[in-house]
C-alpha cells in the first residue's frame, strides 16, 4: 500500500471524522503510522473506538477499494496533496479528504456559488438561469449543490454557455442525488466540471450530511449568490457558513409579497449585496476593473410591480395613440410582438394580460391573445406555466432588457419631476 492508500484507509474508518483524524495524525505523524500502530491507538482513542476500527479492518481491503474507486474515475485528494483546493485549505476546519469525479475547480479561476430554494418560482428559475449563464460566459466557475430548483438550474445554465460548474454532493460522488438531475450529473462528469464530495463513494444521502456539503459549497466559492430562499431555509444555513468564512453574499431582490423572496430580502436588509446584474458579481470578483455601465437605478420589477406594469401600459398607449384606426392598431400590435411588453418574468394569467392590454386601449380578443402568446412560446420568448399563465423567458435577455429600460427610467423620472 502506498501513502495515498493509507490516507484513503484513514478516511474510510468508521467513527473517525476530520477532527479524530487530526488527532490521530498529530499523535502518529502519518496515516501509515496510524495503520501500523496497534495498542498505541488506545491511548488516543477509546477502547471501543479501537475495537470498531479493528473489526472494520478485518473486512476491509483498502488497496482493492482504492483501485475500484479509481476505476470509477473518482480521485481522492487530502490536505497533504498539492492539488487540494487552496480555498478549502483556508477554512478553519478544512475537510481531510475530498472525492472528485471529473475535475477539481482551479484555484486561479474565480468561482461563485448560486444557491436557493428547491421549490422555486418561475421568477427564480429565470433569474438562476440568467445569472448562471452570464457568470459562466465571463469565465466564472459556478459552484452549487446540484439540488432540485435553483442550484441545478444555475449549473445547467452555466454548462449551456460552455462554462464550468462544480457540484458538491451530500452523498458519495458516485451517487446522483436527486435522481431527477441525472442528465446534469452526466454532463458535468462528461467534461463540464466536477462532482465533489467529502463522503466516501457509496455513502447514501442523509440529512445530517448536508450542512457539511453546504460548508464546502461556500468554501469553494469566492462569493455566494442567493436567488430565492424562504425565511427559514437550508439556503440561509449555507449563507451563514459563507459569512463565517468571510465570503461576500449577494441576494436577488424579490417582491415583498413573495414568501420565496423573504430570505433574500432579509439578507439585503442585513447588508448583503444586491445582485441586479451579473456585472455586480463580476465586479466583486475583480474580473472587471469597475462596474459596467449598466442600468442600476431600477430594482427588477420589485415591490411595485403594479406601478411598473402601469407605466408599461402607459408607454404603449403613447406609442400607439398616433394611429387612429383601431383595427390597424391591433394589427400592428400583434405584428410587432408587443404582447411581450406586457409579459413579466412572474407568470401572469391570460385574463390579467387581456385586461391590461385592453386598458392600454387595444381591443384585443382572447383568441387572438392566446394564439399570439403561443406564437411567442414557439419563438422561445415566452413560456406557458400551468394552464393559462404565461411568462417571459429566453435566458440572457434579462440584462439586455435592463439597458433598454434605462430609457423607460428616464421617462419615468420626468413624470416624477412634475409631481
Amino acid at each position, binding site marked *: 500500500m502506498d501513502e495515498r492508500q493509507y490516507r484513503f484507509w484513514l478516511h474510510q474508518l468508521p467513527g473517525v471524522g476530520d477532527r479524530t483524524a487530526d488527532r490521530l495524525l498529530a499523535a502518529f505523524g502519518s496515516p501509515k503510522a496510524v495503520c501500523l500502530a496497534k495498542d498505541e491507538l488506545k491511548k488516543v482513542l477509546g477502547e471501543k473506538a479501537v475495537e470498531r476500527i479493528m473489526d472494520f479492518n478485518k473486512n476491509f481491503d483498502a488497496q482493492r477499494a482504492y483501485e475500484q474507486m479509481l476505476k470509477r474515475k473518482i480521485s481522492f485528494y487530502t490536505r497533504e496533496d498539492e492539488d487540494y483546493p487552496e480555498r478549502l485549505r483556508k477554512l478553519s476546519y478544512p475537510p481531510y479528504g475530498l472525492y472528485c469525479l471529473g475535475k477539481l475547480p482551479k484555484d486561479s479561476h474565480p468561482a461563485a456559488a448560486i444557491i436557493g430554494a428547491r421549490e422555486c418560482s418561475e421568477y427564480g428559475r429565470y433569474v438562476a438561469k440568467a445569472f448562471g449563464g452570464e457568470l459562466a460566459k465571463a469565465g466564472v466557475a459556478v459552484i452549487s449543490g446540484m439540488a432540485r430548483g435553483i442550484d441545478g438550474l444555475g449549473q445547467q445554465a452555466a454548462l449551456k454557455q460552455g462554462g464550468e460548474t462544480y457540484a458538491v454532493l451530500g452523498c458519495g460522488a458516485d451517487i446522483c442525488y436527486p435522481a431527477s438531475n441525472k442528465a446534469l450529473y452526466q454532463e458535468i462528469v462528461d467534461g463540464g466540471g466536477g462532482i465533489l464530495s467529502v463522503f466516501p463513494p457509496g455513502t447514501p444521502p442523509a440529512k445530517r450530511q448536508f450542512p457539511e456539503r453546504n460548508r464546502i459549497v461556500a468554501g469553494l466559492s469566492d462569493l455566494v449568490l442567493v436567488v430565492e430562499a424562504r425565511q427559514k431555509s437550508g439556503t440561509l444555513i449555507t449563507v451563514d457558513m459563507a459569512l463565517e468564512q468571510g465570503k461576500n453574499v449577494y441576494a436577488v431582490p424579490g417582491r415583498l409579497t413573495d414568501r420565496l423572496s423573504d430570505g433574500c430580502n432579509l439578507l439585503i436588509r442585513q447588508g448583503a449585496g444586491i445582485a441586479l446584474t451579473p456585472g455586480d458579481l463580476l465586479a466583486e470578483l475583480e474580473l472587471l476593473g469597475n462596474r459596467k455601465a449598466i442600468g442600476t437605478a431600477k430594482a427588477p420589477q420589485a415591490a411595485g410591480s403594479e406601478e411598473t406594469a402601469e407605466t408599461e401600459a402607459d408607454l404603449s398607449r403613447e406609442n400607439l395613440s398616433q394611429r387612429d384606426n383601431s383595427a390597424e392598431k391591433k394589427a400592428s400590435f400583434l405584428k410587432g410582438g408587443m404582447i411581450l411588453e406586457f409579459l413579466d418574468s412572474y407568470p401572469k394569467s391570460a385574463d390579467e394580460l387581456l*385586461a391590461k392590454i385592453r386598458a392600454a386601449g387595444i381591443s384585443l380578443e382572447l383568441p387572438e391573445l392566446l394564439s399570439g402568446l403561443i406564437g411567442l412560446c414557439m419563438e422561445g420568448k415566452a413560456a406557458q406555466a400551468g*394552464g393559462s399563465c404565461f411568462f417571459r423567458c429566453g435566458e440572457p435577455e434579462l440584462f439586455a432588457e435592463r439597458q433598454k429600460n434605462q430609457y423607460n427610467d428616464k421617462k419615468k423620472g420626468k413624470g416624477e419631476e412634475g409631481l
Partner: protein
Amino acid sequence: MFSSIITGAVYGMESHLVRAEVDLSSGLPCFIMVGSLGREVKESGERVRIALKNTGISLPPMHISVNLSPADLKKVGTGYDLPIAVGVLTAMEKLPRGCTEGMLILGELGLNGEIKGIKGVLPVALNAVRAGITRCLVPEENAREAAVAEGMEAVGVSSLSQVIDYLRLSRKEQNRYLPPGKVDVDALLREGREKEGERRPDFGEITGQESLKRAALIAAAGFHHLLIMGPPGSGKTMLAKRLPTILPALTKEESLEVSALYSIAGRLGAGECLVTSRPFLSPHHTVSPQAFSGGGQIPRPGIVSLAHRGILFLDEMPEFKRQTLDLLRQPLESKEIQIARSNGCVTYPADVMLVGALNPCPCGYYPDRNRCRCTPFERHNYLSHISGPILDRMDLCIEAQRPDLFRVERGQGETSAKMRRKVEQARRKQEERYRGTKIRFNSDLESGELDEYCALGEKEREILEKLFQKMDLSMRACHRLLKVARTIADLEGSERILSGHLAEAAVYRMGDKLEQ
C-alpha cells in the same frame, strides 16, 4: 280456452315483445306460470288472482297455465300482471275473443284491482311500433310516456274493472270511452329548449374569467372532454354547473334515446314523458364502482350511462378511487359500457362529455409559492390518482385562477344565451359537414378521419409540425389538438383551420405535461 296477449320485456337497452299465453284446461285446480321468470314475475299469479277476485271475478276451478314466450328470455319487472289478467279473462271468455288483437298491454296490479305504473314503458313502446303494433294499454301514469313513440295510440288505464269495460266495447266506442293520449314530441322539445333559456345559473354571473369561459365555450361546441385545474375558490365548480346552459339542444333521436334509458332506470319523474335537456350528473367522489358503471345481478344503468349525451362532472377528481375512475377508460373510447354479470351481458350507451375539476396539489394552491409548499413528489402523488389514459383523453385542459377581487370587472359578463347561440352555430356547421355519417361532434372524429375533415394548408401544416416538436406532443395529443382546432374554426365560422386556431388549441394541451 286459450288466449295470447302481447306484452313487452326490457333487457339492458334491448326490448323484446313477449306473448303471455294462458290456457284453461280441466284437471286439478291450480295456477302455474312458466317461461324463465324472475322472482317478482312468479309472484304475479297471486296478485292476478286476488285482483280478479276483488273486481268481482273468481277464477274457475281449473288447471290454469301461463307461459311467457319466448320462454328462454329472462323476465323481470312487474309489468306482466295486467297482460296475464287479461289473458285469463279472455281464456275464461269473459272478454270477447280477438278484442286484444294487435294491442300491447303492460301494467302492474294492486290487490284491489288498481293499475300501477311500471319502468321501461318507452323502449317497449318504441320497439312495438317498429313491429307494427299501434295500440297499447298502459298504466295511466305511463300513458304519456308510451305516446311519445310515434304512431302509438296509448290508452292509460287505472283499474282492472276499467280495462274489462274498455275491452268489451267496440272499437269506435272504445275511443269515446278512453281516448288515446297524444304527445307532440317536437312541441315538447321546443318547450324544453325555451325553458332551458330561463335555466339558472347563468354564465353572465361570471365576470373576468374570460379564458375559462372561452374553454367552456369550445368544449360545449365540440362536445370535448374538459379538465379544469385550479386552487380552491377559483370557480371550477361554478363553471361546470353553468355548462349545461350552453350545450346544444338534444335532437329528437338523442332525446328518445336518453328518455328510453331514463325510463329503464325508472328515473323519469311522475308525468314526465321525455327528457328534453342534456343530463348533468355530478356524483360524489365516494360513489361505488358499481353505481358508477352500472351493475347488479340484472345489470342496471349506472351514472356513466345516465349521463349519456350529457355531462358527467367529476368534482375533486383525484379524490375518486382510482379503480372507479379507470372504469371510464373503455366508455370514453367506445362511448358505451358493457356490463357482464352472471345473469347475462348488457351494453348501455355512455357517450358523455367528461368534465373534471381538480386542485393542482394536495394543499390546492400550487403554483402560488406563498401558500403552497408541496414538493414535486407530493404533487405527483396527488395527480397520479388520475391515470394517464384518462388524462390523455381530455381534449381541453384549462387552469382556473383565483380572481383578484379588485381587478374583477363589474357588471355583466357574456351571458349563457349569447354563448349558446355561438355553440348552436358551431353545431350547425358540424351537422352540415358530417351529414350522412355517424359523427355528431368534432370530438367523435377518429384519427383516420382527421385527414378528411381537418385538412390543413401548407402553412398550417408547418405550424402544427413546429408545435408538435416544441411542445413535445404525442401523436394522440396532436390529434386532440387538431379536433379542438376544428371546433375553434367552427366557432369562428371558418371552413379551413387557420394557424390562429391551431395556436389557440395548443394552449389547452397543458394536460400532457401533467403526466410527467
